[in-house]
């Protein structure tokens, strides 16, 4: 009688080993009810396998549970130390935004027509203008200072008005006596058509209505990666 390698099952060879083995002994070795017969060993092994599979399954569930993706809110707040940031949550969080602040004047009051230019770098290629605001430190004593943002294609020979596309369908207004456009009754609206910027675009921020005695006027532009 031989023995298998792994489970140590009792094997019978017809080339001699079977000689002298009674059928009783054979049946007992193959399917007897004591602890050493083949069926008992196979059954025991299957129990071990089931236990292992159950343990692995539990580990896999635990592992799966530990892979929790951070929400946009968690990514923005930085409140979680055991969730994983995804590209999507990163993009939509505050860390996925780029802010550009463009100053138009300082201690000399706006007279109208002040401009400043921003060129879109490679890293913002294909991004979208998401939010705009204007601010001044000296508020207008007469009239509401108003600002526009125009986009020019890359490579144009001049920033002629004929190349300009308005990125706003409603201009940015700081109402008389106020310091921030967010307090204005009429809010800026970003153009769906021209909100996307590409590398080399020039953005011209321009004051078109000066108000009176307006100092330290600046415009904030917030960009986010397009979906």
């Amino acid at each position, binding site marked *: 009688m031989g023995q298998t390698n792994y489970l140590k099952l009792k094997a019978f060879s*017809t080339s001699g080993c079977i000689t002298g083995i009674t059928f009783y002994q*054979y049946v007992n070795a193959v399917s007897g009810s004591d602890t050493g017969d083949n069926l008992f060993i196979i059954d025991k092994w299957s129990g071990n396998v089931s236990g292992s599979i159950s343990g692995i399954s539990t580990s896999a569930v635990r592992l799966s549970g530990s892979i929790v993706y951070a929400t946009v809110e968690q990514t923005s707040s930085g409140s979680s130390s055991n969730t994983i940031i995804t590209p999507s949550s990163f993009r939509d969080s505050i860390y996925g935004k780029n802010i550009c602040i463009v100053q138009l004047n300082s201690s000399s009051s706006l007279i109208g027509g002040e401009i400043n230019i921003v060129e879109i770098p490679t890293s913002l290629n294909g991004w979208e203008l998401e939010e705009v605001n204007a601010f001044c430190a000296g508020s207008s004593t007469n009239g509401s200072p108003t600002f526009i943002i125009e986009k020019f294609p890359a490579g144009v020979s001049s920033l002629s008005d004929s190349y300009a596309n308005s990125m706003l369908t409603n201009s940015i207004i700081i109402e008389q006596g106020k310091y921030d456009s967010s307090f204005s009754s009429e809010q800026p609206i970003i153009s769906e058509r021209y909100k996307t910027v590409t590398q080399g675009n020039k953005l011209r921020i321009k004051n078109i209505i000066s108000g009176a005695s307006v100092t330290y006027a600046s415009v904030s532009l917030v960009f986010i990666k397009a979906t």
Partner: protein
Amino acid sequence: MTKKTTNLKLTSYNAVTDSGSLVYNYINDVSGSATGENLLLIDTFAGQANSSLVNLSASIVTINNKLIFAPATVVTTGMSTSAIISPSGLSQSDYGKRSVSITLNTSASLLGGEMGFFRVPSSLNGWILQSAAVSCAGSSTSGNPTFSVFKYANNVNPYLESTGTKMSASITVAAMAFESSASEIVSTASSIFTENKVRVKCVVSGSSVRYATATLVFQKKP
């Protein structure tokens, strides 16, 4: 005629159609010790299955061990190729900082009183001023140029110091030096909120100071 089972290819006997088989052949097929007998096939499978389970278990342990969150310092250095980033790790790393530079003058020397402003966007709501420093291209030949940092609540006049809150101790650039130290800001007044205005002002000009620029670094509260 015996048949082979689908998976392990075990030899099976049908009590009717294989009733003429010899017990000798049956025993040999069921429990023989040569290659291809049922017991050997079961045993081989048991060895393979056990090995697979051991490997699978080890793989899960390996995966589990790879779920290591990078601390902020490691996110900053960018030196790990295996750690993963959590919101906390990102926000407290250098990548979680935002710098704002405010230029107070250019080629004309500071006279004192020059100001620059920064409007806090919504994405910096609740952040704190972490450090502030001033540099200049033309250093002072006499006196120590000094600067203040104030914040103002929404829609109040940001000219008046009485309506603002001082965010840090004064920043001083020593005479003949080109930059202040980038001091850490530890102040309960260092938090900024959407639409706050932050003002940097030159309060002591020094002499012949040109291209003075304040750099404010903000970060999410831990």
